[in-house]
Every structure is written in C-alpha cells, then in structure tokens.
C-alpha cells in the first residue's frame, strides 16, 4: 500500500478515551471521598459516582503487562483506564461493586492498590542504566529497592501528609527531583576525563569550553591534538560538558553515587512551592539493593512520621523545628557541602540572630 505519509497529526483526542460517565459529568464533579486506600470516589453534581482504583506500577512496563491491564479494564470497566502523573495506573469504574474483585485480581498479579492521600505514592524516576548515557546510578533498581521498603506507606494512609519521593540519575534531573519531599539524586563526584584522540573529531572546542558554568574547561593542545583540559579543582561534576561532547567521559564506578535531598514541594497548599535541600551529599552505589540509600530514606521517613503534625509535609516540619534539629534528630552530619557556594549562595546564609540556642 502506498499511502500519503502522515505527519503532524498530534496525539489522539482524549475525548475518545473518556468513559461515558466522565463525558456526562465532565467538569461537573461535586466532591470526592476515599473509602479505603487505593480507591477514590468522585461524586458528580448529577449524583453519579465514579470509582477510581489506583494501583502501583514499575513504570517500565512490558507490553505483556499493558495487555493484562487492557484485559482487566475490559472485564471490569468497559475498557477505560488512565495513568497518573506519577505513573500509577487508574482503573475507572462506574460500578462500585466491581472495585473489590478488580483489586483482588490486580493484587494477585502483583499490582497493589494505594498511593492516595497521606501516603507515599509512586517514585517519579528516570532511565538510569536501562537507557541513559549520563546515569551516575541506576534508576529502576534504586526505586524498586526503596519502594519494597516504603510500600506500607503506599498501601496505608498512616503518614502526617503526602510524601513525594523522586529519583533522578544525574544532575539533569529528568525526574525533576528538585521540588520533592525526598529526592534521591545520582551524582558524579570526580571531574570527567577527556579522550584527546577522539575529541577533535567529534566536538567543537569553543562550544565545549562555553558549556562549563565554572570555567573549568580550557582549550589545550594535548599529544598534538586540539583538545581541552579540565581544571579539576574548579569542576563540580555537573556533566554539561559531557552532554555537549561525547569525548568527555564522566561516568566512573568508583566516584559515582547518590545524594539525598529533602523538604521540597510543588503544591501551593499552605506553604509555597519550594526546592529540596541537601541532606546527604554522598552515598555509594551498592547494587542491586542500595542498602545505604534505603536506610537513609526510610530513616528520614520514620523520623518525620513520628514527629510531624497532621498535614505537615517533610519540609514544613523541618521549617517548624529548624534545620539544626533535623540534623540532630536524623543523626546526619552537617558538613561543608551543605553550605551553598553557587550563584545565590549568600542568600542562604543565616542573617539574623534568631537562633534556637
């Protein structure tokens, strides 16, 4: 067949995929309730009720599993489902009676329901060693290791508030971890090495030099090649040079690892959106289970859980008790690395005598 090549058609219109109950009550929802963890019930002004069953997903899905979800959707909810912005799966039912059997089937297949309300939902994450060239650590493996441990907080609603955990495998932060309650971030901690033979063939020296925010890269002739050198003391391993030039080798099994950040949020509820702040500058890469990372994160979650007030997200709790107490309670050492030294560093220095003595 020799059809006209189609381009620029955009995605299918979402309306095709809305169940009738949503089409009917579109924009006319009155309120919602959470009868049990994993289930949202939205009541429309018309009185109609929409049941959403939310289940966990590893995000990296085989087509076998997607087909399984499709089949279950056909069986229980006329084929309608959606994914959430945090990669969970939501089955959309108009018949409340079908929620329990669907849930049972899903849980039997290994897809627990949960993640709603004052819980830890799925960890937003990235590619890691499965696909990305920049990764300072794996993504899916760390996330799996963490969620195996945090899972009770997904299937229960026993936390003071929502806790959003996010993961990114390098400073590009595709997991947008920069505003998470807890952010797990892969970091390089050594300056990149240069392949001086390859560099002249594949990269432009001026744009490489320009790519470095700290001016650590300087043009140089090495072994007769037009190349660059990196001033190690000036490099903070951001990887931008690597992104613009493949001859810069940044991955390093010895010095790559993971940092932990805390207290960010995105919603405007109560406090304004805010960035995550450094808690632990470096933990080693220890596959397949990253025990140091799991321990650090669960430690922070537990201390917060035991001490925060209701509705107090991690950062709000720390704001109330102060950072000194946070470091004291978690036993995390405060080091030179916690003090900012980037562009607006001075704005983070404490400039008042208001101190808990």
């Amino acid at each position, binding site marked *: 067949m020799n059809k006209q090549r189609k*381009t*620029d*058609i*955009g*995605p299918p*219109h*979402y309306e095709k*995929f*809305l169940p009738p109950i*949503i089409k009917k009550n*579109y924009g006319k929802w009155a*309120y*919602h309730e959470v009868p049990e963890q994993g289930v949202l019930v939205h009541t429309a002004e018309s009185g109609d009720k929409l049941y959403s069953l939310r289940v966990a997903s590893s*995000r*990296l*899905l*085989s*087509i*076998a599993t*997607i*087909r399984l*979800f*499709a089949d279950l959707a056909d069986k229980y909810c006329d084929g309608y*489902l*959606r*994914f*959430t912005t945090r990669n969970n799966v939501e089955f959309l039912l108009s018949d409340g009676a079908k929620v329990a059997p669907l849930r049972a089937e899903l849980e039997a297949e290994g897809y627990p329901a949960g993640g709603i309300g004052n819980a830890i939902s799925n960890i937003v994450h990235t590619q890691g*060693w*499965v*696909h990305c*060239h*920049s990764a300072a650590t*794996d993504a*899916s*493996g760390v996330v*799996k290791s963490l969620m195996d441990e945090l899972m009770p907080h997904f299937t229960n609603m026993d936390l003071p508030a929502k806790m959003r955990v996010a993961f990114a495998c390098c*400073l*590009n*932060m595709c*997991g*947008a971890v920069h*505003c998470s309650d807890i952010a797990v971030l892969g970091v390089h901690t050594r300056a990149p090495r240069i392949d001086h033979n390859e560099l002249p063939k594949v990269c432009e020296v001026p744009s490489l030099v320009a790519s470095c*925010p700290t001016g650590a890269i300087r043009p140089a002739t090495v072994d007769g090649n037009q190349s660059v050198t990196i001033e190690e003391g000036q490099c903070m391993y*951001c990887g*931008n040079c690597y992104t613009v030039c*493949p001859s810069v080798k940044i991955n*390093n*099994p010895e010095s790559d690892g993971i940092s932990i950040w805390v207290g960010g949020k*995105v*919603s*405007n*509820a*109560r406090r304004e*959106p805010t*960035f995550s702040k450094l808690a632990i500058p470096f933990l080693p890469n220890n*596959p*397949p289970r990253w025990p140091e990372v799991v321990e650090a994160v669960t430690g922070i979650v537990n201390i917060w859980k035991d001490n925060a007030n209701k*509705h107090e997200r991690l950062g709000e709790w720390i704001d109330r008790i102060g950072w000194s107490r946070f470091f004291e309670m978690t036993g995390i050492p405060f080091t030179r690395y916690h003090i900012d030294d*980037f*562009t607006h560093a001075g704005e983070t220095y404490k400039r008042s005598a208001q101190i808990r003595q």
Partner: protein
Amino acid sequence: MSDTTRETPLLDELEKGPWPSFIKEIKKERERPMVGDLLGLLERSYGERVGHWKHGGLVGVMGYGGGVIGRYSDLPEEFPSVAEFHTIRVNQPSGLFYSSDALRTLCNIWDKHGSGLTNMHGSTGDIVFLGCRTEALEEVFSELTEAGFDLGGSGSDLRTPSCCVGPGRCEWACYDTLDICNDITQSFQDELHRPMFPYKYKFKFAGCPNDCVASVARSDCSIIGTWKDDIQIKADEVLAYANNGVDIEKEICQLCPTGCISWDGKALDIDNGECVKCMHCINVMPKALAPGKERGATILIGGKAPIIGGALLAAVMVPFIEMEAPYEDLKELTEAIWDFWGEHGKNRERVGEFIQRVGLSNFLDEIGLEPVPEMVVHPRTNPYIFFVDEDEEDDDE
C-alpha cells in the same frame, strides 16, 4: 552472542519484594534477543556499577527533528541486539486516558517492531517506547500515525505538553486542562516536531493550585488554575466534618498561610480578599468547600531543572486570566515569548534563565505585559535602578 537465557543473579534480586518489579517486566519480554541482551548489559552494569550506553547520536524520522533519542551500547560486540537501542517518544493523549483498544494498538505496533518494553510514561508525559533499531524507526512512525498517534518532542523544541486529570475527574479544575493541553499540542505541531528554539520549552497545565502535574517546577510555561471570587462554603458539611473529627481550628485555621480563615465552633468565616487560593482548607474538607465560580488561571514562566544556571520555579507573568478556548491570549503571549527568546536567547538557555539575564522588566516590555506587584515577592531592595529615557519609553507606546 545474544543470549536470552543468560544468568542475571544481581538483577534477580530485584524480582523479590512486594513492589512491582521492573526486572519481571523486562523478563516478560526476554524471548526477544534485544531484551535478552538488555538484561545482559544491565547485569554487567550492576556488577561494574557503571552504565554501558554511549553518548547518544542523532537519529529520527523523516521531516522531524525530535521525538527519538538515539542510544548505542558501548559493548556492541558482546550485546549486538542492543547495539542500537533508541527510544521513541509517543505523544500521550491529554490526561493519560486510554481505552483498552488504544493500548492494544500501541502494544501491537511495539510488539512488531521494538523491544516490547515501554515507560508509561516518561517524565515529560510521553509514552516511551524503549529500545528501537534505527531501521525500524520509520516503520513504527508510520504505523503510529496510521493509528492516530504522533511523536512527542525532544531536543530544542516545544516538548510534549501535559496536564492533570482536571475536569475529567476532579471537582477543583478551574479551567479545562485536558482541552487546552490538546489544543496547544495541536496548535504548535511544527514547534513540537522541529527543534528551532534556543533550548527546550515545556508546557504543563494544572487545574488548580494543588498542581498535580508539578508544573511550577517542571515547565517553562506553567498554567495553574485559580479563582477570583469567594470560596464556596456548604455550612452544614463544614459542621459534618467538625463532628467527624476534623479539628478545624488546628488543622485548617492555623495552617492557612494568611490566617484569613476562622472558626467559632459553628461557622467558618473566610476573609476572601486575603485568601491566596492555596487550596488547603478545600483539600481538607472537599465536601464542604470549593473554589469560587469566577475561575481562570495564573500563568507562570521559566520553571526548570538545574542545568546550568541552577533550578528555577516558574515565575508569575499573568496573575489571572480567563482560560477559554481557543486560548488566543495564551497563544499570543507564547508567540511573543518565543519571538523574543528565539531571537536573543543563547544556545541551551532556558527561558527562565533568559528572563533573569535580560531582566524581568525588559522582558515584560518586549512581550507586551505591564509590570504588576503580583509578579514579585517584594520590590527591589538594591538601589541600582536603570532609569529609562522617558522619550524612549514614550516611543514604545
């Protein structure tokens, strides 16, 4: 050397435990040589604690500059089936809604041409097809478009817009996030598919200040629903919450950021002029409270991750605007931004960094907005004011 039965003791550890296992997912497709080799490569990474992917290369489909991320293994001899292992970004439908048939259609295409592995979804919102050989790209693309799907963005272009579930299921949506996301995506197909910006540009649409799509942190243009008039109160439902254990004074009044809500044990009183639409009170009592009726959105510009000048949250550009189709105001504003940033932005300079470099006041002048106090936390503290020649000013008007 491609071997679908090789041992993966380290990865096998990650099949254990209660949370869904991505290794199980990969193994479900391991009969494919590509996936077998992926497991081998990944096991190697786990052993050596380092990735085995080379720096990406430019690959794509005809006529498009974005939508495909080239990826090559650095061990092509040992793992030949993943020597090429590109990803295809397939533009998701607004709100991530699917019918089972649509999902099966996608699965069938990917079954035929690729690894059978996906991300549902990528961080930007795309359906990600993980692992495609170069030669199969064009086939996948034509089958996708045949089925009504198209590619998403990558590179220095408009990235795939995304949104929260909005009026599809949420009682708080202050404008139609699904419609606008679809409309903007369709209206800017060229910008989405053909990189011509200084750097990437992302839209995210959140129906209310809860920002369930993390727009303020993750998009160059963050649209957050809000309202102007009074919070709607159902007094009897408030009482019901109070009777059912909500400590309204402690859980709501004391946590209101402006302290504008008070409770005398019987009725709630909101000083709506002081309310900053944070959503907290509504969140805690969804049956009793709801956003006002005069609804619209706040437009914020410049959110991004840290590369390279540091992460930014998006900044208020339009405090309130009605968001009705066909969204002409937003489109005009967007084009004005793209024009100015497109002409003067540096390579790999996100619009948020660009605004800081040129100065917000200058930026406003160029895109045709008036300065208003809502754009700042507070007026300047330093006295280093560039006074504009008044004649020049007048010329502009």
